[in-house]
């Protein structure tokens, strides 16, 4: 467990709402992309954020980096609240937090050589001389497994996986502590995905990085994460250590997600939960539990009251009324390893 670890990032009651344009007078609807999220990220770990598209996981990442202004709530990085930071103060924080992007084709400027792309952050934030900078760029490109010849080329001369490596090199250029990876491998072939994931894990060990890893792919999340948070419609419905969450999913949504992973092992019977319907609109989310419209176990209470994320056992937190009355489903937690 991660109890005695140092907290790097604390997010509390974070809300990011976007105004939605309509013709109606008087009423100002908002899109609740991130709706009251609280979480911790411990130093050196990888927190995986998983959820279907539209669940607000990317917005969460972007809000933490303040690329999107939070509507409410606190973002505390290394003990310092950053939600109000601006200008050079914010930049100092951002130098500690970098991002790896989803689209390996869009995230590198097509008109810049790789050397310039990686050198840019070094040039802006260090006092290294030109020769030292070049040396640093060469070191970085080697760290991500590309040859020095790559430096003279333009982004379009590389494959998706290679570009993602370049993106990683750029993110690492000024030695950040915390990296938000927004679906970094979802645009890549499966064979390349694992290479990039393994590279990220190696670099994590080498530079003691902390990752917030956003993905919709459960197997990718399982591969890289220490802890996992499951998002649904802008809220975290369940959060826990990887082993606990995969062995013993508590929330009906998590169960449904996990039962959707195809398996080869037919011996081990699993609980199968099917959910139907579409993700409700985040402009007009269901009252009460966001998942009640699709939940097979929905009770009357779920339609009126919003469940809070509560500790279920020492490894898991869940936001579901099924577990409110803590003794009800005792037998399911026996499975925990």
């Amino acid at each position, binding site marked *: 467990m991660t109890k005695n670890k140092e907290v790097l990032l604390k997010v509390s009651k974070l809300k990011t709402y976007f105004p939605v344009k309509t013709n109606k007078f008087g009423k100002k609807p908002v899109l609740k992309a991130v709706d009251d999220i609280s979480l911790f990220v411990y130093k050196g770990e990888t927190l995986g954020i998983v959820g279907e598209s539209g669940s607000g996981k990317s917005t969460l990442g972007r809000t933490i*980096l303040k*690329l999107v202004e939070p509507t409410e709530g606190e973002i505390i990085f290394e003990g310092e609240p950053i939600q109000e930071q601006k200008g050079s103060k914010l*930049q100092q924080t*951002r*130098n500690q937090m*970098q*991002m790896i*992007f*989803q*689209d390996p084709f*869009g*995230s*590198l*400027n*097509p*008109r*810049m050589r790789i050397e310039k792309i990686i050198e*840019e*952050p070094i040039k*802006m*934030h260090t006092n290294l001389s030109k020769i030292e900078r070049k040396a640093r760029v060469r070191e970085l490109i080697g760290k991500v497994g590309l040859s020095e010849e790559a430096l003279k080329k333009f982004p379009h001369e590389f494959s998706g996986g290679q570009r993602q490596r370049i*993106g990683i090199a*750029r993110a690492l250029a000024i030695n950040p502590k915390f990296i938000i990876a927004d679906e970094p491998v979802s645009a890549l072939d499966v064979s390349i995905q694992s290479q990039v994931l393994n590279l990220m894990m190696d670099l994590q060990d080498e530079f003691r990085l902390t990752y917030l890893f956003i993905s919709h792919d459960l197997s990718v999340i399982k591969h890289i994460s220490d802890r996992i948070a499951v998002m649904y419609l802008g809220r975290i419905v369940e959060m826990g250590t990887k082993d606990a969450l995969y062995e013993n999913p508590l929330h009906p949504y998590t169960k449904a997600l996990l039962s959707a992973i195809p398996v080869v092992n037919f011996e081990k019977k699993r609980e199968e939960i099917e959910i139907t319907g579409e993700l409700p609109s985040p402009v007009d989310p269901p009252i009460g539990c966001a998942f009640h419209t699709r939940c097979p176990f929905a009770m009357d209470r779920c339609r009126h009251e919003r469940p809070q994320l509560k500790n279920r056992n020492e490894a898991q937190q869940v936001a579901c009324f099924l577990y409110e009355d803590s003794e009800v489903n005792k037998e399911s937690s026996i499975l925990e390893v």
Partner: protein
Amino acid sequence: MQKYKKNINLLLGAGILLLFFGMMVVSYFYTPYDVNSMDIPNKLQEPSKTHIFGTDEFGRDIFSRILKGSQTAFIVGLLTVAIGAFFGVLIGGIAGYAGGLLDEVFMRIMDALMAFPGIILALMLVAVFGPGIINTSIALGIIAIPSIARVTRSGFVQQKESEYVTAAKLIGVKPYKIMFKHILPNISSQIIVALSIAFAIAMLAEAALSYLGLGVQPPDPSWGRMLKDAQSFLISSPWYTYAPGGAITLLVLGLYLLSNAIRDIMDPRSK
């Protein structure tokens, strides 16, 4: 490289432009006859070996005047494009990148400017500031701003959401650097096309203004003015119009061909 060779628009357009550019350069050092020396006995001569495009109503060699006129055309064209490009890219870039109120204000001003028919606006400006090469260029440059600003703005709007821009923001690159070092090179092809079209329009407009007697003033030769002068002799000496009319047509055609070719070549989808 293949697509450069096969592009007939590029070959023709660049060829025509080079031809006129060469003419302009040559005219600074050499013209067959003195541009302004009159020879009344030999006025309105048909094209011949001594005067290949003939002579005008004062007996001046038309070929020499066409050569010299290319200087006017290029100066007006380049100056117009320079003014239009500078302000157009600046206004369009800021409007597109900043968005919001600034975008709204800038673009409505551009719309207002566009609402005037170009030539009328140019006439007005020239009437206020007086004729001449520089004033004509300034007037035409102002007219060229809105179309260049629009192209630039749409490019910036499109590019500013790209992840490479987000990445640059995260690194802390200053907004003006993001605008001009990151985004601008990525929309240069669209802007170059807009500029070459503005160049062609400027030449046509200069010819039109000079034709109306408001552009370049005599004795500086201008193709538009030559056309105006030739008009009086259209029945008796129709060949007088061929050279200036042909020069204008050919150069504008060359510019349009070239701008088409640039668009085709630089369009990433054609790669």
